[in-house]
């Protein structure tokens, strides 16, 4: 029973991760890509680590897998947020169909939404 749950968790995790990577290839601009990749890969990695824990039980491998899941859950969104903020300040343009850019509005700067050609 636990084994089956572990396999299910592993499969869900791998599926989410690969779909997130597909989003990294397919989406139109940096911020969309970052959103897709970060969220999907975080959930997918946590699923894989949970599956490893369920299949190996309360051994050193399982407990360390849970610790790794916790670490990934905390650090990957933080890194993506820092990188998104950095690239906004660096001047990477938003997609041309973007509706709202509150970061630039609040700072009172010039809009960096890409011009439509």
């Amino acid at each position: 029973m636990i084994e089956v749950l572990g396999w299910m968790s592993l499969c869900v995790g791998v599926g989410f991760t690969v779909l997130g990577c597909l989003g990294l290839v397919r989406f139109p601009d940096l911020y969309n890509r970052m959103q897709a990749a970060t969220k999907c890969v975080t959930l997918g990695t946590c699923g894989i680590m949970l599956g490893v824990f369920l299949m190996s039980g309360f051994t050193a491998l399982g407990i360390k897998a849970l610790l790794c899941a916790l670490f990934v859950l905390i650090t990957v969104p933080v890194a993506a947020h820092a990188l998104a903020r950095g690239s906004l300040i660096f001047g990477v343009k938003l997609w041309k169909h973007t509706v709202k850019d509150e970061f630039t509005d609040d700072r009172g700067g010039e809009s960096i939404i890409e011009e439509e050609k």
Partner: protein
Amino acid sequence: MTVLIVVLSFGAFFCLYRALQGPSIPDRAIAVDIMGVIFCSITALMALKLKLAYLIDLSIAIAVISFVGTLALAKYLEGRSLDD
């Protein structure tokens, strides 16, 4: 288990495409970061498959190094020093 590792490797190939192709620096940075996290989960799966418990330590180390590298690059893009 082998099938899962191969499918994850395809995900890593997608990230590699974005890291080579990406129009801007942050594109490459986020692709390499995501690739690091994927390698982290591949290592965990190999620890389970080969029954080598110490490989999970390597997995944690890869996650830490990937996080620190991305954070340093984000600070560089923002134009500030690291202790700011």
